[in-house]
């Protein structure tokens, strides 16, 4: 029993990331009708906003010690983060919590990147075939990841979670198991919690604001909404920015789980696309549900007991599920009729 809970938990962090990326993909597809292959790159950019931000925060200044000397008799160099020098303990706290603090920076940056992307490129592809949308955004994804590579190199850059959230927590105790049965890294729990909040926020925004209502109406029937004289395009641009922000934040928070490199986006993109298709193209709840579902399935498939029965299943489970779903339920789990069919 503890094992099963542990596998579900293990699937949650990946599932959360899939859900967040897929949510943005679906928003973009549903509102703008655009298939965005550069969405994984946004996830990656988010991660690198954090990397950059942490680097800036940890910027050190070097002073020469007045009392101590090195073995060679020269004064000892003292390296000290500038922030510490300026703010003392608060500075150290900032550095420790850089991943969380970088959320504040990432929100405007990712939003602006999203809006620029939409206005500068995607806009011109609304009425062009899906194949061309795929191709141009694929090109953009390559460009974005190569830009990151020129500045950060090809190696993964590790990023640590705040000290207080670094260890393991005994999740089993919460559920009434024996202590020590379900150890779970605290940060993964934080990630899951964060994803739930973001997803909830996006849904609430769409559900309870007039803005969201118009967007939902536009997703259902763009032309009619346009006829009402509502400037739906502007709202859709905003939605693109929002989707980019969600993907970016997913990347920001993922950095302590997986050290980002420039290819991070591509790896997640393919999986997220599959998540979208499994959930049902154009269905937001479908995307979220499928994200968690596939994350958890993947985690179960990686159990040794399962791998012994079907070797290699952990590697292909997601793709396999996608194939089966597409063939039996072309609309996906929760998809609307007629989206991209016929």
């Amino acid at each position, binding site marked *: 029993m503890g094992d099963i809970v542990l596998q579900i938990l293990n699937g949650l962090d990946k599932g959360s990331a899939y859900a967040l990326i897929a949510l943005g993909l679906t928003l973009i597809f549903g509102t703008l009708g655009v298939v965005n292959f550069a969405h994984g790159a946004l996830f990656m950019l988010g991660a690198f906003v954090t990397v950059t931000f942490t680097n800036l925060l940890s910027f050190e200044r070097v002073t020469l010690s007045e009392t101590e000397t090195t073995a060679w008799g020269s004064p000892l160099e003292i390296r000290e983060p500038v922030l510490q020098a300026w703010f003392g303990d608060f500075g150290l706290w900032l550095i420790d919590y850089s991943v969380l603090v970088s959320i504040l920076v990432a929100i405007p940056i990712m939003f602006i990147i999203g809006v620029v992307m939409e206005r500068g490129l995607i806009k011109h592809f609304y009425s062009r075939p899906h194949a061309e949308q795929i191709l141009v955004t694929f090109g953009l994804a390559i*460009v974005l990841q190569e830009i990151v590579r020129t500045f950060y190199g090809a190696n993964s850059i590790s990023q640590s979670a705040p000290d207080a959230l670094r260890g393991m927590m005994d999740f089993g105790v919460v559920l009434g198991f024996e202590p020590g049965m379900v150890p779970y890294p605290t940060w993964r729990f934080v990630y899951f919690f964060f994803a739930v909040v973001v997803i909830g926020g996006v849904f609430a925004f769409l559900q309870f604001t007039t803005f969201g209502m118009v967007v939902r109406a536009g997703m259902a029937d763009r032309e009619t909404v346009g006829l009402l004289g509502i400037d739906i395009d502007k709202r859709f641009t905003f939605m693109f920015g929002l989707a980019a922000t969600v993907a970016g934040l997913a990347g920001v928070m993922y950095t302590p789980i997986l050290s980002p490199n420039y290819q991070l986006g591509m790896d997640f993109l393919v999986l997220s696309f599959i998540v979208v298709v499994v959930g049902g193209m154009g269905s937001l709840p479908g995307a979220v549900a499928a994200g968690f579902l596939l994350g958890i399935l993947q985690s179960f498939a990686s159990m040794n007991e399962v791998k012994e029965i079907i070797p290699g299943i952990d590697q*292909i489970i997601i793709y396999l599920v*996608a194939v089966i779903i597409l063939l039996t339920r072309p609309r996906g789990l929760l998809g609307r009729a007629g989206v991209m069919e016929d």
Partner: protein
Amino acid sequence: MFGSKISDTTTLILFVIVVALIPLLAAPLGAGYPALMQFFAIFGILAIGFNILFGLTGYLSFGHAAFLGVGSYSAVWMFKLLSMNVIPALILSILIAGVFALIIGFVSLRRSGIYFSILTLAFAQMSYKLAYSVLTPITNGETGLQLALDDPRILDSARTSGQLPTPNLFGLDMNATRVVDVLGLEVQLNFGYFFSAAFLVLAFWIAMRIFRSPFGLMLKAVKTNQNRLNYTGVNTRPYTLAAFVISGMYAGLAGGLLACMDPLAGAERMVWTASGEIVLMTILGGAGTLLGPIIGATVIKFAEAKLSKFNEGVVHGWFDFLPDGLADVLTWVVAKFVGDGWHLTLGLVFMLVVTFLPGGLVEGARRIGGYLGRRGQKEDLEQLGSNVQGGKTTAAE
């Protein structure tokens, strides 16, 4: 093609001449070495095959690299088990890739549009992941499949020397190269290149026949209006499946040839970005046109070879005539686009082509050609008719 006035026979003859002269034409550009010229021919074959599917039917496969990989593995296994002669290796490459394409195509073609793309992507990724994990006995995992001295090679006579054998055609070595001096220019005549080029010509000829056949016409009709075709009494599924299998076999041949030139096979050949590169070559040259994909493949392989070789020092040399500071700045910027950064250039060019020239380089050449003269010859343009339409990359839906 560039104009309706050039007949297919003429095109084919010109094509053969150009292909035969590549060692001479490429030499002054610094591209006349065997490995690169072989790439021109082999990736040309790959792109022609991809174009038969994508260019004609509009079905965008994002998993074609899987067939390339399958072809390579098959060939290397043939080298290990049977003989270093390339003929059995290539036959097996084509056959196995064909079988794979039949299975994957049969399933994937039940859906169209983006769903088809995702299905092919999923299958290719499965192949890739399995090649790295469970299938290691067949693929040799990350190391890649290589020749070994103690391979059975039951048809070949036992070798006494301690060297690995090389792929050959009845004794003619693929890497046999003769250097001739043409007006002071060192021209490398490599057997492997001419061998691949022969297949390129064959592949081109077959593609040309398909383009001009009723079968090809049906494929074009699938791209424009699959629905109408169904109500016209045509069962589109076997047509698209045939196109898929043919294009998979082309990719298998290309994979087999890669292994013939360099007898090792690795899973990275199947990763989905490799599939993306195939799409890219086809689009860059001009999907749906006969020559476009070959041009696209050549341009990309050439650019890759050239750009990835430049480093900062070389770039700085270009700007030596400028004042120091300016030269440094320019070097810094340009260096980002060459060497390791050549993918950046590739991505940018790709975006520009899709945005402004969805018909690819061939379309660009045609526009320039049309601009330079030939106005008022309306009928001529109409004659081109459906051939002109290659630029449209509508996904079949």
